[in-house]
């Protein structure tokens, strides 16, 4: 029987700090794009199953959700690959406010379906890539990202969209989450990223490397 790999308190704090820094770069970009101050929560780290993650999303965002999701792979030294996903989530009712913030104007209702997909996909592309590439840079890994995909729909469709069905619903994930609020725009949301728990040994090694480099 193998002993499960765990992050100790210092490693967990370092990981959250790395995510905080990478989301800082993302928040600065978001702030530019919507011309508003972005307030951020303290990052949270958890180990949970895909099923628990879906329940958490449902609890936070209700049954109607808008999200942009991007698959990525961190490639650590020795060609150790850790797959993951980065997701930008907003409540479906707030998507229109997000679009208005991105376009700097109110949007006629009949135009929303036409521009929703393109605008959210573009914003998600830039924001999620900035976050993931910044995190990978600090972890000294290479990053391989897919093009993000926008989803606007109901909670029951979410497991399929996020690839958390079947055995993947039970897989252990390492999740980081930060919540954000766009001042004066009526939009709040979350940025989540999760990786396969199988990648923890490689992640732990890179976090230890990061901690050692900060002590020099």
């Amino acid at each position, binding site marked *: 029987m193998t002993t499960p790999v765990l992050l100790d308190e210092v490693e967990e704090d370092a990981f959250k700090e790395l995510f905080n820094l990478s989301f800082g*770069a993302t928040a600065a970009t978001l702030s*530019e*794009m919507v011309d508003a101050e972005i307030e951020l929560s303290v990052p949270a780290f958890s180990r949970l199953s895909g099923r628990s993650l879906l329940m958490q999303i449902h609890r936070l965002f209700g049954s109607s959700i808008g999200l942009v999701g991007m698959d990525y792979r961190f490639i650590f030294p020795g060609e150790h690959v850790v797959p993951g996903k980065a997701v930008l989530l907003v409540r479906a009712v707030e998507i229109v406010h997000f679009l208005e913030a991105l*376009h700097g104007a109110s949007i*006629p209702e009949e135009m929303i379906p036409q521009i929703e*997909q393109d605008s959210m996909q573009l914003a998600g*592309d830039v924001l999620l890539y*900035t976050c993931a590439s910044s995190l990978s840079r600090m972890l000294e890994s290479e990053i391989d990202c897919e*093009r993000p995909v926008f989803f606007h729909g109901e909670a029951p469709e979410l497991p399929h969209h996020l690839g958390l069905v079947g055995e993947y619903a039970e897989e252990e994930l390492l999740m980081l989450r930060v919540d954000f609020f766009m001042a004066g725009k009526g939009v709040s949301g979350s940025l989540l990223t999760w990786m396969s728990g199988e990648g923890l040994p490689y992640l732990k090694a890179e976090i230890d490397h990061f901690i050692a480099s900060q002590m020099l």
Partner: protein
Amino acid sequence: MEIIRLDPGELYIGTAPAEVHTILGSCVSIVFYHARLQQGSICHGRKPAHDCARSATGLKVCRELGDHVYCSLDFMLAWFDTRGVPRSELEVKLFGGAMMFNNPIMTGGTNLGMGKRNVDTAMEFIRSKRLHLTASDVGGPWARQIVFFTDTGEIRLKRVRKSEQELNGLQEL
């Protein structure tokens, strides 16, 4: 310090300190900066990509290179590659790609026209080469005035909110 005005379809590679000024509408500028060398480059692409036969072994420069986002990025990256700069050390910044959702000239059916296509092309290149995107300001209805300092990598950006008519004129920028 030398001041460079970067017009649409041009790119600039700074090997000595310079201040590069450009104005963007639906065009995009992408900056590559290497902190250790204190050198940077910037392009001003008007269109996404040029469908030409690229060389697998060398670097082909065509007369329309600077107009196209993909070709400009390919050239700038090759310049840093030939100097032995690890791609992981390059900082990449992306600006421009203005769009007007209610402007039939800038919208193209199911997408938001040239601005979005330019940004998509830049992102596709950045993703495929596994580069690190460190800052961006894209989309929206704004024109952007940019000043890039090639020795520090600093960007000064000012948004210019134009009327729709004026923004149409900036589509060529």
